[in-house]
Every structure is written in C-alpha cells, then in structure tokens.
C-alpha cells in the first residue's frame, strides 16, 4: 500500500486525472446543453476554491488561522462597486470594470498588509479572534459610511452579463493560483513559511524574518481574495454589507481546506470541490438540515481525519497507509512507535536544512 501511494505511477495517475478534469472544465461552456446558471454556479465554486487556497496560505502554511478572511472578499467587492458606480467613484463617471477590480484587489492587499502588521503580532487564538473582530468591525464601518458605500441599502452596479468570459477568467486565475502555491511550496520562501508554523522562535533564530514573511503572505492572500471579491461584485451587480461580508465565506474556506487537507497544495482544491458537491447533494435532499450536517461534518473531520482527503494518500501522515499497516502488518510500523513520527522528524530536519541558506538570501 505504502509503495503504491509513493510510486511514480500513482503520481502520474493523479496528474492525469487532474488534467482530465481541467480539460472537461475548459470545454464545458462550449457545449450546447450548458446553461448560464450552471456556469454561474461553477464560477461560484471556483471562487470558493480560490478563497480556500488563499486561506490555506496563511492558515495552512504559516499556521495563522484567520477567522475573518471573508473581510478581504468584501473589501474587494466594495472597492469595485464604489469605483464603478457613477455617484461614488469621484470622477463623475463609473470606472470600467477591470481597472476597478484590479484596484480593488490592490486595496484589499494593502489593507491586509496594514491590518496584518498589527494582528499578526498576536498568536494562536488571539490572532483568530482579532481577525474575526476585524471582519465584524469592517462590516459595521461599511454600514455606517453611507455617503461612500450606500450604507445598509447597498450599491447597484451597471449590469453586464457574459458568464462565459468570467468563467474562463476565474478558471484561469484558479489554475494560476494552484501553480503558484505548488511553486511557492518548493521555494525557500515556502519552506520558511512552514518553519514559522512549526517553530516561530526557532525560525527567527535561523535568520528568518518571520514578521515580514507572515505579513507578505497575508497581504498576498488578502489581495487575491479581494480580486475574486471584485469579480463576484461585478457579476452579482449588487452589493450590500450583509451579502458582501458573509461569515459563511470564511467558514467554507476553513471547512474546504480542513476537508481536503490543511497545509497541502491540493487540499483546498479537492476539499472545496468535494464540499461544493456535497452541499449540492445536501441542499437537494436535506434543505433544512444541511447546515447542521455541515457542523457535524466539521467536528468529524477535525476529530477523525485531521489531515483531510489529501492526507489519506500522503504516505507521511496518519492515513490509510498507516491504518492499513496497523491492521494488516507491513513495513511502516516499527517497535519504536509509529513511523510517521520518525518521518516527521526527518521532515523537519530537512526543512531546517532548507533555511540555513535563508540568512544569506
């Protein structure tokens, strides 16, 4: 079993499968039978995946669990909406969509840098709750600042319907994000992020500037989520504080990432897609109960599959592999405790070796 999972063939099959899914997603809109509502629904799924990937950058790689990540989505959406609305843009005319969306992402990223600089001084649960507080506070500020944001009434954007275009834009962006995280995880910067998660003091002693690292990745994640917020606002053609700042966007990101495997590259993608599919099933069959089932699911995942779906196939974690060997015997269990600890020790030794060179860079 272990050999199977680690084998090249297994890897190859996984890559082939993902490429097949991607190809299917690319040709899907070209089929006659695909309706606009299907496309919009798929676009929303891509948005959820993107938010999960971004959340995983701070929550999974650096270990700073952000309970208010949806705030960047709302800020991106609101900046786009404010710029595109004639009355509030400050120019007398509404901005064209794409500059507005890009500026929205930049502002979200900039604000993430400023707020992250303050809140990332806090650790563990204090950071989580400070971010939840930020989320609630920003929503309240948006509600109060009515001359700019329209207050509780919200803003209506000029309608523009080309679902296909947005679908392809978001598909492209999500693929780019996946490639980016895959690449990031293999750079020295990515290893340094993991080092901060495992032992922040130790990482700093190795010469890693933990604060700069954390804030950089936090700001990137915020900006990227803001970008998707702007895209969403344009497609939704309407924003108000209660639909632009929704807790469930954070919840979905956390759950998707946990389900797929926190701290892995593929985890948020697999988990969010699985969650999306699961939710369609739950929605269709248990309309009233679906959130309760989701809550139960969250508890089950956290308690029983803490490494998520991807973790099940990762030979280095508590997974099918270790369970398999525990039940049926095999090479991976030795007398000195479970092999995963040993592998993890080797792993952390590897990652510390990675950072020795960080000082000089």
């Amino acid at each position: 079993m272990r050999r199977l999972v680690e084998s090249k063939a297994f890897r190859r099959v996984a890559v082939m499968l993902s490429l097949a899914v991607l190809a299917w997603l690319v040709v899907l809109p070209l089929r006659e039978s695909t309706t606009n509502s299907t496309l919009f629904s798929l676009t929303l799924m891509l948005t959820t995946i993107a938010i999960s990937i971004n959340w995983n950058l701070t929550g999974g790689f650096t270990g700073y669990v952000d309970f208010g990540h949806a705030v960047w989505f709302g800020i991106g959406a609101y900046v786009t909406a404010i710029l595109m609305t004639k009355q509030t843009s400050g120019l007398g005319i509404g901005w064209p969509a794409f500059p507005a969306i890009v500026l929205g992402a930049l502002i979200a990223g900039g604000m993430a840098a400023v707020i992250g600089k303050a809140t990332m001084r806090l650790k563990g649960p204090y950071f989580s709750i400070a971010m939840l507080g930020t989320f609630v506070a920003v929503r309240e500020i948006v509600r109060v600042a009515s001359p700019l944001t329209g207050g509780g009434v919200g803003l209506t954007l000029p309608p523009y319907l080309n679902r296909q275009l947005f679908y392809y834009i978001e598909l492209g962006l999500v693929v780019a994000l996946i490639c980016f995280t895959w690449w990031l995880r293999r750079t020295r910067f990515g290893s340094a992020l993991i080092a901060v998660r495992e032992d922040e003091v130790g990482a700093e002693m190795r010469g890693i500037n933990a604060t700069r690292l954390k804030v950089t990745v936090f700001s990137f994640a915020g900006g990227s989520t803001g970008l998707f917020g702007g895209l969403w606002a344009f497609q939704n053609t309407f924003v108000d504080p209660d639909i632009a700042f929704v807790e469930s966007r954070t919840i979905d990101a956390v759950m998707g990432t946990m389900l797929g495997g926190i701290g892995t590259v593929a985890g948020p993608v697999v988990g969010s897609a699985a969650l999306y599919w699961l939710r369609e099933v739950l929605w269709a069959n248990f309309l009233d109960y679906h959130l309760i089932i989701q809550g139960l699911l969250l508890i089950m995942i956290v308690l029983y599959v803490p490494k998520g779906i991807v973790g099940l196939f990762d030979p280095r974690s508590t997974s099918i592999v270790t369970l398999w060997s525990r039940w049926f015997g095999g090479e991976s269990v030795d007398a000195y405790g479970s092999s995963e600890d040993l592998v993890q020790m080797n792993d952390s030794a590897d990652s510390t070796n990675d950072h020795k060179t960080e000082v000089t860079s």
Partner: protein
Amino acid sequence: MSQLLQVIINGIALGGMYTVLVLGFSIIWGVLGVINFAHGEFVMLGAYTAWLANDQLGLDPFLAAPLVFLFMMMVGFAVQKILVNRVIDRPHLVSLLVMFGVSIILSNGMKLIFSADFRRNDTALDGSWQLMDGVTIPVTKFFVLLAALGIVSALSVFLQRTRMGKSIRAAAQNREAARIVGIDVKKVYAITFALCIGITGAAGALISPILAVQPFQGPPLTLKAFAITAMAGLGSIKGALGGAMILGLIEAGLAIYISGIGTNLAVIASFVILVVALVLRPQGLFGGLRPVDAMAS
C-alpha cells in the same frame, strides 16, 4: 451633568450584564484551556429555555434562572463527556474548530425548532426608576446587575473556600502537579465545564428580557466574551467584573455622546479595546488563573 450620570448608570448596568455573560467563558478558558467558541450559543440556549418556561409555565425569567442553571449544567456535562474531553490535550485549532462546529449545529438546530423569529421574554421587573430630572435607572438591568454580583460572590467563595474550588484552581495552575497530589483532573474538568455552562445558561435567562431571543444572537456575545476575557485575564473573576464594567462604560458613552452611529461604533469598540489591551499588556489587566501570553514570538 445629568447626562454624564446617565452614562455611568447605563455603563454599570451594561457591565453587570456583560459580567454574567463572560464568567463561564473566562473560567472554561482559564481552567481547561479550551476556547468555547459556542459560548454565545449556550447563552442563546439558556435564553430559549427561559422563554419556554415563561411561555408554557408563566415563570418569570428571574425565577426561571436557577432552573435554567440546572438544566444547562446537564447540557454542559453531556457536551463535556461527548466532545470537550477529546479536545483538551489537542492544539487550540482543534478545540476552536470543534466548538465552532457545535455553534453551527446549535444555532441552526434552534432555528429549525423555533424558526428565526425574534422573541422577547417578559418580566415583572420592568420599566425604569426616575432618579432625578433626566436620569433614570433601567429596572431589569439593575436586577441583572444584582444577580451578577450575587453569582460573582458565590463563585469566589466556591473557588476560594471549598475543596472542589481549590482543586479547580490547582488544576488550572499546574495540571501534572494537581494529578500528583491526588486530584482527579478529569472530574475537575467535567465539573468546571458543567458549572460554567450552567452559569452561561442562567446568564442567557437573565438577559432574555433585554436582548431579543433568536437563534443567531450568539456570535457577537462570543466575541465580547473573548474580548473581555483576553483583556482582563483568563479565569479571573475580578477580571471578568472589571473588564465587563470597562466595556460597558465605553459602550454606554459611545451610544450617548455620538448620536446616530454610536451603537454601530460600540460593536467596533470591543475589538479595538481587545487589540490595544493585548498589545499594551499581553498578560491581561487583572491577572488570572493562567497567563494570557498573546504575543507571537
């Protein structure tokens, strides 16, 4: 002058309300090290129980509070046995997420049973007393304050004087040492959790005539409880009282002096106070059962 007096009265009344709300959260965190993210939902559960007692039996919420306390203690005991026991030794993310799951289940379950309608619980202790020209005392909040002071003193006596209370404090300070001297730490944890959920439920019953009872009233209360606890010190009764009063006075001041948006600003206030307090005094303002220790590296 009368306005300032009114702000102080409102602030203290609000502070009394926050005190009962925060006690259970603070002690669970201080003793078990578990951040009860479903705190607000337990308040909501207590409020619904009191509302039911009033609706079905005609019981005044102030009289129902002791019954709600007993009922919620049983709920707390069950939750502790089924879930909390499994997460005590795990990293904080695990307990946070598990309790988060509990909060989703509770709020949506209550919505399913009672619908999302806002409900108000009636009490005989209603209205306001005219103190002098332009200054009034809200009667319900005054009695909530009295109840809060009663609970605070009873809890202090329990923690300081009784054998069980001493065991709880010992387990909070040093778990291993407590175990060595023969304290059944598991039992202590179970009793602490049940007791705190009981107090939290009673708090829900007490505030049910003040805040509308509805399934989604929990999260803002959790946030406030967190802010007060982290600011004042984990598991500190004195801190819960002091922190709640500080927040109450600030919110009352904002609501009166800044017209129109003051109540919205009050939502932000607790968060701003939290961050400022954590950065300036990371060990908590009043000390507590365990250090706050909020700074990263």
